[in-house]
Each structure stands twice: as structure tokens, then as C-alpha cells.
């Protein structure tokens, strides 16, 4: 396990995510309900509660996690959090930090044309919203 020294940068990052997600993430007590409710957790490198923990610590490494992109914003965690926190908003805030650098997580132009024509608009539009900057 790596040693974490909390710096002003970490605090700034926590503050930023708190603001973007409109949450007080420090309220999370790491009960794990979100991770238990998440239908995508099996595909995540870190669990939703780990995401919350990393943000609490202002750990910027959370931005490199696959988990924030696997989240499908299904709000299963949202309705169950005993602290009334919205983990889906935290995940979105983290995605936005990345996308707002004008980066794309999914390059839609590189999706093969036969795939594009087979998908309903609703899928493409939401993927654009969630994965392109």
C-alpha cells in the first residue's frame, strides 16, 4: 500500500469534486452499500466506495481508474446511500475533470460504421454525453 501525504493539491482536488458533485464527500463512512448495489462493480478496478475514499483523500489517481467510466449512472447507489450521498454525481464529476481537458474517453469517429448504424440514437447520444469532451 502506498503512503499518502495529504498536500494542498489533494485538498484542492477534494474541494473541486465536492463542488462539481454538489456533495460533501467527507460524509462518506465507507459502509460499502454503494459497492454492494452496483451492477457494474465486477468490471471495476476499484469499487464505488473506494472511489469515494480516494476522493476524500484527494487522491488524483482516482482519475486514472477504469471504474469511473464503467459506471453507467444507474443510480442504484444513489437511492441506497445511508448518508444520502450521490456516488453517481461523484463519478460524473471525475469524468468531467477528464473530459473538460478536451479529451475523449471514447473516440466516436473510430467506432466502426457497421456498429454505428446498428445502435439506436439514444445510445450514441448518451455515450457522447458521457464519454466525449
Amino acid at each position, binding site marked *: 500500500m502506498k503512503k499518502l501525504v495529504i498536500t494542498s493539491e489533494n485538498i484542492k482536488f477534494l474541494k473541486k469534486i465536492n463542488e462539481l458533485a454538489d456533495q460533501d464527500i467527507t460524509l462518506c463512512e465507507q459502509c460499502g452499500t454503494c459497492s454492494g448495489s452496483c451492477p457494474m462493480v465486477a468490471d471495476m478496478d476499484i469499487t464505488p466506495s473506494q472511489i469515494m475514499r480516494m476522493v476524500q483523500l484527494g487522491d488524483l489517481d482516482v482519475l486514472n481508474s477504469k471504474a469511473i467510466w464503467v459506471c453507467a449512472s444507474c443510480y*442504484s447507489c444513489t437511492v441506497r446511500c445511508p448518508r444520502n450521498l450521490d456516488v453517481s454525481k461523484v463519478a460524473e464529476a471525475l469524468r468531467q475533470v477528464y473530459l473538460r481537458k478536451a479529451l475523449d474517453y471514447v473516440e466516436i469517429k473510430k467506432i466502426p460504421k457497421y456498429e454505428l448504424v446498428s445502435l439506436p440514437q*439514444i445510445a450514441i*447520444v448518451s455515450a457522447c454525453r458521457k464519454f466525449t469532451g
Partner: protein
Amino acid sequence: MKIAYYPGCTLKTTAKNFETSAIAIARELGIEMVELPRWTCCGTVFSLTADDLIHHVAPIRNLIRVQEMIENGQIEDEKRVLTLCSMCFNTLKRSNLRVKENTEDLKKINDLMYREKDYRAEIEVIQLLELLKEIGFDKLKAKAKNPLKNLRVAPYYGCMILRPIEVGIDDPEDPTIQKDLLEALGAEVIDNPYKKVCCGSYQTVNNKEKVAELAYNILGHAQQEGAEAITTCCPLCAFNLDTRQKEVLKNHPDFQQMPVFYITQLIAVAFGLDNKTFGFNQNYVDPKPLLKKKGLIK
């Protein structure tokens, strides 16, 4: 009664059968769905970050269209807009709630859209199931000339009509609205423990294998409980559960394909409406053999 109707993009293409069947059953119930003029894509997903207003412009712009329809006397229901698609419903309703609760946001959005009339935040967004419940499932039962006898159906709710709580139309942990409706129509309703587990949504674009796996769980559990078909009211759930059965079959060769209905398609069958209103040709897994077997269609 005339009510403003927001279709959403997919209902004009791959989910046209959802729209056609919904319009037909609504007409049967005395409701005329009047499509919004110049509606735009709602964005499909509600923007979750606090500072991001631009993505609420589309939902609000559509609600301004509803406001205009009311002003022009085009509709009789003077405060609501009807949606079918769960995602449109969720996005429109949440954006609406946000500007209702936050006048500062509303003002900023109105400023940004200076070429539109200001939105007054008086409209309400509803989903078709809510409207049907309001009309009364007993009324639907009375219309069901062709009850769905012996049809074992497992309703699938997905996420967007249940969560988060402030937009949900039913109990997020144990929804029954589809069950009540289908029972009224004479179907044998099967409870599926996966009825409110996410289908993977837009991950279908970049991670279709995962979505196929989720679909396999949802469909498989329904089958285990004895279901012969699934109902939904979301074109993306429908795509993931229906069309992705192709991928499911690839990974699980002994998987038995099963039809996925828009709830409105089954209502139209129960009402004994014209075949043309069903739009079964757009379903990936053909539901006709099942319905024929049950004597529900010819």
C-alpha cells in the same frame, strides 16, 4: 383529451413501434398525443455536475415548446408533457426539477436562450405509465377485448423511471406499476429479481460484451422464474435486452431467445387493435410465434 407529447429521437427510428403502439392505445383511451413542434434531442442523460448548465438547455428548450403549445391553445392538458422513453422522461423531469428549485439556474438558462421566450418552470413531465395509472387500470381492463391469458410476462423497469427517488414513478426497491397493469390485462405476471438492475445503458456503445452479460442475467433470471417474455418502456433497455440477444447467444449457445415487448405493444394486443399498431417487425426477437401460440394474435 389533448396532451403535449415529447417523442425523443429513438422513437422516430428504431423504436418507432413503441410510439405507434402508444399512440394507438392512447387514442383508444381518449387521449390525443400532440407532438411538440421543433422538439430537440433531450440529451438522453441528465447532466450531473453542479456547474454545468449548458446540458440543461435542451430539456428546457423543449419545455418552452410545451409552454408555447399551451399558450396557443393546442393542447387541453395545460400543465403536463407526456413522455414514453424512460431516458427522455428522466432527463426532462430532472432538468425541470432543477430549474424549479433553482431560480438562479433558470435565469441563466433563459438568458442564454435569449431568442426564446422565458421558461416559467410551470410544466410537469410525466411518463405514460403514470398517465395510464391515473386513468385507472380498471378502465384498461375494460378495454381489453383480448386479455393476455396464459401469457407469462416479467416486467423490466430498468433505472430511469425509478431512480433517483425524486423522479421515480414507483417504489425504487419494489416497483409494481407494470405488474398491476399487466395483471389488469389478464397476463400472468412473473416477478424477476433483476427487474430493476441496470441493463448497462450506453455502455452498449463501447462495451457491448458487458451489456450482453447483463442482459443474459436479466433475461435468464426471468426465464428461471418461468417468464416467456419481458416488458419495458425504454428504447435503450429494449435494445440491450432484445437486440443484444445476438451477442448473448454467441456467448451462451444454449440460451433460449425470448421476446422483449414495449409495454404499449402488449396493451395494444390486449385491446385487440389493428396488427399495424404493434410494429413487431422492429422487434429483434420475433414475438409473433409466442403470441400466436397463446392465441393472442392470428
